[in-house]
C-alpha cells in the first residue's frame, strides 16, 4: 500500500438546470479512483451546492497512482428514473507524486461533458500521502519529473544528460469496438478519454522506469503523441531526453552563478571560475544515484525494443532512398558515405572520443532544442527519415512489436544519416505520424551534431576538471580530445573560460574532402580558421551564443500534390513515390525564400507532410536568420532555358529586377547589413565578401569563388532556370509572400533574434481553419496556389487580430496541416504574440555595446551591433517606404501571372548548408527575459483583482520579464467533444470555438488548482475535427500539453542589474537565477 489518495468535494457552482420543473438541480458527486467509488450526499435544489464532504480515502499502489486519473462525476439525483450525469472532471494526480512539484490540488474545475461542454464548476481538494518504496523491482517510477520544455528548465541545472528515452503503448480504440454500436456517444467518448488518460499515465510510468534505470531523475523535452489508427487501434507513444537535474536554490544561485544552465539566456557566461560543484545526489530519496551511474549503458533488455525485424508492412520508403543525392539538399541524406575515413587525425580522435561515449547508446538522440553553452560542438545539418506503412490491426496490445520495430527502423536510419554527416548525435529530435485510412507515414527529424562528450558523463557540467576526476573514460583520451578540439576549432576549454568566438557550432563536422553532399565551403567569417558551409539548416533553436546580423523571420514552404485515390498497397506505393519529390521541392522553396530574404541559416525547421485521400500536403516552417559567421548569401539569378526572342529576355530581366528589389527591400526590413568593413580590418582571406552586394552576377562571383574555394568552383548566385510550368509557380510563390505589416515580426523558434526588450504583454492563441475545395479537378499549381493563399491569409488575419499589440512578435508559430476529408484542408496554428518596447530597444542595444569590448575581436562585433541598433531605429521609417514597393511588386507579378506567360523551371544548382559564427557579444543580445531592460510598462497586464486566477499560457519555455520559481508538473490532457446539434451551437465554427475555449479553460483550471499561474511550453498536439453537417453532427479531439509553473514578476529593480551587467559574462548567470 504505498500510497493514500485523499479527495474532498467542497462545492459546486453555476450548475446547469437539470429539473425543468423547479429550474434547479439535486446534485451529488461520485469520486472514483481505480475500482473504488465514493459518493457525496445529494444537495437538493440548488445550482450552487455546498457538499463539503468528508475526505474520501483511496489506498492504492503507486503504480495505479501513476496510471489512473481521479475521476469525479457530478450527477443529478432523480428519484424515479436513472440519475442524469451532469459532467466529469478527470484529475491527473501525477504532479502530487513528485516531492518537488505541487503538494495539493485545490480549486475550481470546470465540469466537462463530452456532449454539452462545460457545465458549471466544482471545487475539489486532493492530497496524496506517499510511502516511499525502495523495492528495486517496483513497477512505478514516482518522483521522476517530466517537462515538455525542450531546454533545461529554468530553475534546474543539468548534472547529466543521459539521452534518449522512448516508449509506446497500444490498445484497441473504444470507438471501434463492437460495444460502440450499442452505447451512447457520451459513453463511448468517455471510454476513450479514460483509456487515453490511462495509457498516457502508463506511458509516463514506463518512461520513468527507464529514466531511473539510466540513473536520471527527469525527462526533459517530453513529447507524447497519439496515433488514432482507426480500426487498427490506438497508439500512444512518447520520446524524451533523460537527465539528472539538480534544483537550483535561489539563495545559492549567486554561488553557482557561473553555471551555464541557470538560464539559456545567460548561456554565454561560461564559468570563469573553475569551482567544482558536486551534483546534489541526496535530493530525491527514491533516486538511486548512489548506485554507480550508468548513463552510457544501453537499455536493458526488459525495456529495449524488440530486435529489428522486417515488419509485415507492404511498402516502405524512406526519403533517403534513391532521390538524386547530389541534388538532394537534405542534410544527412548521404547515407552511403562512410565516416571512418576522415583526413584530419585530430578530428578523428575527437570523434572517436565522442563516439565512444555516445555509441554505446542505442540512439544518441536528444529532444532538446536549447543547450547549455559548450554542449554543441558542431552542427552537421538536418537529418530526416520517413517511412510509409500500412496499418494492420494490433493483435496483441501487450506486445506492440510492430510499431516498435517501425520506429526502430526510422531511428536507425536517422542515426546512419547523422553518421554520414560525420556527427555522432542528433539534437532537436522529434517524431510524428500522419494517418489516412490505413496508410501511415512515420517521420522523424533532427539535427545531426557533434556534442561535447563531457556532458554525457557524470557530474562534469561545471568545469573541465571535474570530468577528469569523475570520468569513466581514460584520462588520456580526455586530454587528447581537448587538445584535439583546441586545434581543430576554438577549444572548448577556451570558450569555457574566456569565451572567445564560439563560432564552433557552425564549423563543418564532416570531412571537407569527403563531403556527404555537395556544399560550398568557405572559411568561417568569424575565426577564419575553420570551414563553414554557406547555408545551415537545423531543427533546434538558435543557440544563445550565436552572432546574428539583423532580425529573423518566419519562412514557410508550402506544397500540395495531387494523388490518385487508391487502396492499400498501391496507395502506399504512390505516396512513397511522391514523398522524395515533395521533400525536394519544399527544400528548394525554403532555399529560395531564404535567399530572397538575404539570410543564410534556418532554425527550428519543421517539415510536415500530411496525407489525404487524393492529395498530399507539405508544409515546412523555419526561422531564417543571417548568421554572421556564414558567408553572405548569393542572390537569385534567373536564367531562361534557351537564348530566345527579345521579349522573352526582357521578361526575364524584369523578373530578375523584381527579385533583386525584393532582396534589397528585405535587407532593409530585417536589418541585414553584413559588416563588410570590419572584415577588411581582420584581413579576411576571403576576397569575395562583396558578394553580398554583387549577388546578382553569376559569372563574377563564380570567378571569385573558384579563387577561394578549392573544392568547388561553381556558383555563387542561386540560379533559377525557367524552363517549365512548375517554375512559374515557384517564382510566383517566391514573390507573392506578403510582407508582414509594420510592427510585426514572426518566427517559429523560441525567440526572435534581434529583439531583446519584451514587455510582459503576451497573448497565446490557437486558430483553426478548414477550407473546402469545391472543384476536385485541380492541378498541382492550382492546389499550390490555394494552399499558399490559405496560409498567407491566415497569417494576415492573425496580424490583424493582434494589431493592438504592435510592436510585437509572433513567436513559436506552429502550423499544423491536415486533410481530414477529401477536399478539405485544415490548418491549425498555435503561437504566442509578445509585444516588445521599441523605445528601449535602442537603450538595450547601447547597453549591449557598452558591455562588449573586452577584447578586440568583440569590439568588432560591438560595432556591428551598433550599426544594427541604429538601423533598427530607422526601421519604422524605412518600412513604410518599403511597403508600397512591395505592393507594386505583387500587382505586377499578378499581371504577369494573368497573362500566363512563361513557364519556369526552378533548378537548384547547389544547395548546401552554412555555419554560424558566434561571439560572446552576441550572448548579450540574447533576448531572454532575464536580460531584458528595465522599467517597461506592461502594456496589457491582467487585472489581479479578478476572483479567478489569471493563468498565462505560452508555447515558449519562458515568460518575458518574469522568473519561473517552480515547476508544478506536466499538463497532458485529452478531450473529446461531440455534438448532435451542430447548427444550434453556431455551426462548425461555433462548435470548435467553444471547444477550444473550453480546453483552454480546463488547462487553466488545472494549473490554478496546482497553485500555478502559467503554462509554459504549451502545445496543442492533436486537433482532429470531423463533421457531418447533414446529420447535424460534429466531433473533435484535442490533445494539449505543457508545464505548469509558478512565476514571479521581475521587479524593476531586479531588472536593472541585468541590463547594466548583462554584457559581463561573469554576472549573467546570476541574473538568470536571481
Amino acid at each position: 500500500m504505498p500510497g493514500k489518495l485523499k479527495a474532498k468535494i467542497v462545492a459546486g457552482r453555476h450548475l446547469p438546470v437539470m429539473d425543468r420543473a423547479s429550474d434547479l438541480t439535486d446534485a451529488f458527486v461520485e469520486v472514483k479512483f481505480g475500482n473504488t467509488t465514493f459518493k457525496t450526499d445529494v444537495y437538493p435544489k440548488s445550482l450552487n451546492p455546498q457538499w463539503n464532504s468528508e475526505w474520501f480515502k483511496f489506498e492504492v499502489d503507486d503504480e495505479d497512482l501513476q496510471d489512473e486519473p481521479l475521476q469525479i462525476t457530478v450527477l443529478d439525483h432523480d428519484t424515479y428514473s436513472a440519475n442524469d450525469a451532469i459532467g466529469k472532471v478527470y484529475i491527473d494526480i501525477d504532479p502530487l507524486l513528485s516531492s518537488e512539484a505541487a503538494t495539493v490540488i485545490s480549486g475550481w474545475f470546470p465540469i466537462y461533458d463530452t456532449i454539452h461542454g462545460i457545465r458549471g464548476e466544482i471545487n475539489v481538494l486532493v492530497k496524496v500521502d506517499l510511502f516511499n518504496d525502495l523495492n528495486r523491482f517496483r513497477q512505478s517510477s514516482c518522483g521522476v519529473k517530466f517537462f515538455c520544455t525542450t531546454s533545461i528548465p529554468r530553475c534546474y541545472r543539468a548534472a547529466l544528460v543521459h539521452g534518449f528515452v522512448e516508449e509506446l503503448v497500444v490498445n484497441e480504440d473504444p470507438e471501434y469496438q463492437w460495444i460502440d454500436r450499442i452505447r451512447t456517444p457520451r459513453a463511448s467518448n468517455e471510454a476513450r478519454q479514460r483509456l487515453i488518460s490511462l495509457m498516457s499515465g502508463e506511458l509516463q510510468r514506463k518512461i520513468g522506469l527507464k529514466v531511473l534505470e539510466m540513473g536520471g531523475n527527469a525527462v526533459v523535452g517530453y513529447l507524447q503523441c497519439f496515433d488514432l489508427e482507426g480500426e487498427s487501434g490506438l497508439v500512444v507513444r512518447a520520446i524524451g531526453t533523460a537527465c539528472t537535474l539538480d534544483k537550483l536554490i535561489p539563495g545559492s544561485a549567486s554561488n553557482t552563478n557561473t553555471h551555464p544552465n541557470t538560464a539559456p539566456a545567460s548561456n554565454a557566461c561560461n564559468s570563469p571560475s573553475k569551482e567544482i560543484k558536486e551534483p546534489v545526489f541526496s535530493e530525491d530519496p527514491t533516486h538511486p544515484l548512489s548506485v554507480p551511474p550508468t548513463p552510457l549503458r544501453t537499455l536493458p533488455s526488459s525495456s529495449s525494443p524488440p530486435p529489428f525485424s522486417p515488419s509485415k508492412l507492404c511498402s516502405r520508403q524512406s526519403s533517403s532512398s534513391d532521390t538524386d543525392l547530389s541534388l538532394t539538399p537534405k542534410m544527412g541524406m548521404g547515407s552511403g558515405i562512410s565516416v571512418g575515413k576522415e583526413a584530419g587525425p585530430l578530428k578523428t580522435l575527437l570523434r572517436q572520443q565522442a563516439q565512444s561515449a555516445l555509441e554505446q547508446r542505442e540512439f544518441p538522440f536528444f529532444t532538446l532544442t536549447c543547450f547549455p553553452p559548450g554542449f554543441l560542438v558542431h552542427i552537421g545539418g538536418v537529418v530526416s527519415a520517413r517511412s510509409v506503412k500500412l496499418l494492420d490491426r494490433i493483435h496483441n496490445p501487450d506486445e506492440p512489436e510492430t510499431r516498435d520495430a517501425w520506429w526502430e527502423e526510422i531511428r536507425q536510419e536517422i542515426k546512419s544519416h547523422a553518421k554520414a554527416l560525420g556527427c555522432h548525435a542528433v539534437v532537436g529530435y522529434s517524431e510524428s505520424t500522419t494517418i489516412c485510412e490505413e496508410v501511415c507515414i512515420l517521420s522523424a527529424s533532427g539535427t545531426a551534431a557533434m556534442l561535447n562528450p563531457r556532458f554525457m558523463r557524470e557530474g562534469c557540467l561545471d568545469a573541465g576538471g571535474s570530468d577528469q576526476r569523475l570520468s569513466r573514460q581514460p584520462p588520456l583520451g580526455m586530454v587528447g580530445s581537448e587538445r584535439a578540439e583546441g586545434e581543430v576549432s576554438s577549444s572548448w576549454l577556451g570558450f569555457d573560460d574566456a569565451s572567445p568566438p564560439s563560432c564552433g557550432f557552425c564549423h563543418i563536422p564532416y570531412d571537407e574532402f569527403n563531403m556527404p553532399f555537395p556544399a560550398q565551403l568557405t572559411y568561417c567569417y568569424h575565426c577564419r580558421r575553420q570551414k563553414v558551409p554557406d547555408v545551415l539548416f537545423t531543427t533546434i533553436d538558435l543557440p544563445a551564443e550565436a552572432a546574428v546580423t539583423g532580425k529573423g523571420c518566419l519562412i514557410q514552404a508550402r506544397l500540395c500534390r495531387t494523388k490518385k485515390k487508391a487502396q492499400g498497397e498501391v496507395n502506399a506505393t504512390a505516396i512513397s513515390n511522391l514523398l522524395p519529390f515533395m521533400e525536394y521541392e519544399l527544400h528548394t522553396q525554403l532555399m529560395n525564400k531564404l535567399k530572397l530574404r538575404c539570410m543564410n541559416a534556418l532554425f527550428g525547421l519543421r517539415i510536415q507532410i500530411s496525407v489525404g485521400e487524393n492529395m498530399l500536403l507539405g508544409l515546412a516552417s523555419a526561422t531564417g536568420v543571417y548568421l554572421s559567421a556564414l558567408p553572405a548569401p548569393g542572390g537569385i539569378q534567373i536564367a531562361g532555358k534557351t537564348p530566345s526572342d527579345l521579349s522573352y529576355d526582357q521578361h526575364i530581366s524584369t523578373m530578375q529586377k523584381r527579385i533583386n528589389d525584393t532582396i534589397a527591400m528585405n535587407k532593409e526590413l530585417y536589418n541585414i547589413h553584413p559588416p563588410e568593413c570590419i572584415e577588411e580590418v581582420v584581413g579576411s582571406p576571403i576576397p569575395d565578401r562583396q558578394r553580398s552586394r554583387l549577388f546578382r552576377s553569376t559569372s563574377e562571383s563564380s570567378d571569385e569563388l573558384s579563387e577561394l574555394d578549392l573544392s568547388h568552383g561553381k556558383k555563387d548566385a542561386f540560379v533559377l532556370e525557367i524552363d517549365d510550368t512548375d517554375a512559374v509557380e515557384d517564382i510566383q510563390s517566391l514573390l507573392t509572400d506578403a510582407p508582414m505589416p509594420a510592427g510585426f515580426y514572426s518566427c517559429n523558434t523560441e525567440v526572435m533574434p534581434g529583439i531583446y526588450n519584451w514587455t510582459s504583454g503576451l497573448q497565446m492563441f490557437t486558430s483553426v481553419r478548414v477550407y473546402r475545395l469545391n472543384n476536385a479537378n485541380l492541378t498541382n499549381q492550382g492546389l499550390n496556389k490555394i494552399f499558399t493563399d490559405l496560409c498567407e491569409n491566415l497569417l494576415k488575419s492573425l496580424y490583424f487580430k493582434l494589431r493592438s499589440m504592435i510592436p510585437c512578435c509572433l513567436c513559436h508559430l506552429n502550423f499544423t496541416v491536415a486533410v481530414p476529408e477529401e477536399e478539405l484542408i485544415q490548418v491549425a496554428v498555435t503561437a504566442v504574440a509578445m509585444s516588445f518596447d521599441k523605445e528601449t530597444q535602442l537603450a538595450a542595444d547601447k547597453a549591449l555595446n557598452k558591455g562588449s569590448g573586452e577584447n578586440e575581436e568583440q569590439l568588432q562585433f560591438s560595432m556591428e551591433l551598433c550599426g544594427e541598433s541604429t538601423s533598427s531605429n530607422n526601421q519604422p521609417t524605412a518600412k513604410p517606404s518599403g511597403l508600397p514597393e512591395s505592393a507594386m511588386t505583387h500587382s505586377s507579378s499578378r499581371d504577369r501571372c494573368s497573362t500566363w506567360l512563361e513557364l519556369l523551371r526552378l533548378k537548384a544548382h547547389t544547395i548546401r548548408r552554412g555555419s554560424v559564427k558566434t561571439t560572446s557579444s552576441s550572448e548579450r543580445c540574447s533576448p531572454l527575459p532575464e536580460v531584458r531592460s528595465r522599467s517597461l510598462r506592461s502594456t496589457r497586464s491582467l487585472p489581479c483583482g479578478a476572483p479567478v486566477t489569471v493563468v498565462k499560457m505560452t508555447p515558449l519555455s519562458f515568460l518575458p520579464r518574469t522568473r519561473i520559481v517552480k515547476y508544478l508538473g506536466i499538463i497532458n490532457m485529452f478531450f473529446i467533444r461531440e455534438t448532435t446539434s451542430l447548427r444550434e451551437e453556431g455551426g462548425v465554427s461555433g462548435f470548435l470555438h467553444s471547444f477550444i475555449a473550453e480546453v483552454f479553460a480546463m488547462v487553466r483550471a488545472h494549473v490554478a488548482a496546482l497553485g500555478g499561474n502559467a503554462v509554459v511550453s504549451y502545445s496543442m498536439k492533436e486537433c482532429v475535427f470531423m463533421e457531418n453537417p447533414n446529420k447535424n453532427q460534429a466531433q473533435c479531439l484535442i490533445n494539449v500539453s505543457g508545464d505548469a509553473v509558478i512565476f514571479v514578476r521581475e521587479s524593476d529593480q531586479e531588472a536593472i542589474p541585468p541590463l547594466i551587467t548583462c554584457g559581463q559574462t561573469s554576472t549573467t548567470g546570476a541574473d538568470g537565477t536571481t
Partner: protein
Amino acid sequence: MQIRYAVFTPILCRTQRFNCAINNTRLQMLFTQTVPGAIYLLATVSPRLDRYITLVKAYKMSMELDVFVGNTTIMDMEVYQLWLDGLTVSDAVKVRMDEGALLECEANPEVLTSDTMDQFRTFQMCERLLHSPTKLGSQLLYQIPAQNQIILIERYYEFDSVFAREVLGKKLSKGTKKDLDDISCKTGITLKSCRRQFDNFKRVFKVVEELKGPLVENIQRHFLLSDTLARDYAAIVFFANSRFETGKRKLQYLSFQDFAFCAGQLISYWTIGAMDSMMEDMDVDLEKEFLNELKDLKVLVNDKDMMDQHKILVCAALRGKIKVYKLMEVNFKNLSRALVNLASKLTHTKDVRDLFIDLVEKFIEPCRYDRWTVAEITLFLTHYTNAAHCLGTFRHQMIWDRYMGVIKSSQCSPLLHLSLIKVNYLSPTPSISSVSPPVNILNELNTFLICKL
C-alpha cells in the same frame, strides 16, 4: 464559386485587371481576389459575368471553418458596439470599412469579414454570461481582463433612451415584446437591439422585483452596473412595476430622463424604503399605507377656514414677488384643490397610473395657460408647502411633506431636458441654503425648472 459584388473602395490593395471583350466592346473590370473563393468585382458588374468566371476557376474554394481563440479573450470594443447595435456581419464589415479598418495592418475585406465573424461569435458565446454578470467574474471559460469585463457588462446593459421611453410604464411581457418591431420602425433601432434592450429590462425587473432593500443597490449588486445606469434601470423597473401611464399624447414631450428623474423622486419619497432604509421591504412598490393616509390631506380643501388661512399665508409670502400674483390669488383654490384631490385619489391603482397625466392636465396646463414662469411656480409651491406647516389645525405635516416633495419636483422635472444651463442658474441662489439638504436640492431644481416653463 462565389462572386461578391463589392462597393468600390479605393483602399483595396492587390487588384487585378481583366480586359474582357463583351459584344465587341472592351470593358474593363477590376477584380480583387482577396481570399480564395471570393472575388470582389470592383468596377462594373457585367450581366454576362459568368463567362469570365472561368478565368478564376482556379480559386475555387470556400472557408468551412474559421476560428481564433486567445488565452485572453480578444474583444474589439468597436466591433462590440456594432454587435450590440444589432448589425449583421456584412453590415458591420461595411461600417468598419467605412471607418477605415482596412488601413490597419494591410487588411483586406476577407480578413475583416473573418475578424468580424469571429468577434460576433465570441460576443454571442459570452452573451449567456452577460445575462448574469456576476457569473462573468467567476466563470472559467473565458479569461477576460477585469476592466474589459466591466466594459462588456456596462455596454451590454446600456440602452437607447428613445427605446426606453417607448417601453416605459408598459408591462414587460410577451405582448410588449411582440410590438417591438413597431418600436424598431419608429425609433430606427434594429429589432435585434430592441430585443436585447427589452430582455435586459425584463431580466433586471425579474431579479430585483422580489428583492428587499434599496432598488439601485440591488441592481448594482446583481448586475454590476455603474451608478448612473443602475439608477436608470431603477426607474425602468419602478415604472414597469407601477405601470404609470406615459404613452399619452400630452406626455409625449417628456423624455426618458425626465421620467427617470421623477421615478427617483417617487422612490425617495413615496416608498417604504424612503422612510426607513432598514425596513424589510422593497423600493419597487409605493407604500400603500402612505397612499391611504394621503386622503387625510383633503382637510386642506374641505375645511374652508384652513383653505382660506392657507391662501392668506401663501399670498402674504408671495405678494410682490411674482408677476402672476393676481392670477394666483384668483386661482389659488383651484390649484390647491387640484393638488390635494390628486393626492386623495391615489388609493386607486388606476389613479396612481395616471399620476403624470393628471398632474399635467390638472396643474401644469392651467399654470401654463396663465403664463406662469418656472420660477414663479417653484416659489409658489415652496410657499404653498411651507405655509401648510403654519396652519395650526393641520396635523399631517409628515404626509404633506412626503407628498409635496414629489409634486414639487416631479411636476417640474419634465423640463429636465432643458436643463443644460442648470448649473449656471443655480449658483446665484444662495437663499435656499438654509433649508435642509435634500429639500434644498429639490428646491433648486424646481426653481430652475419652473423658470424654464
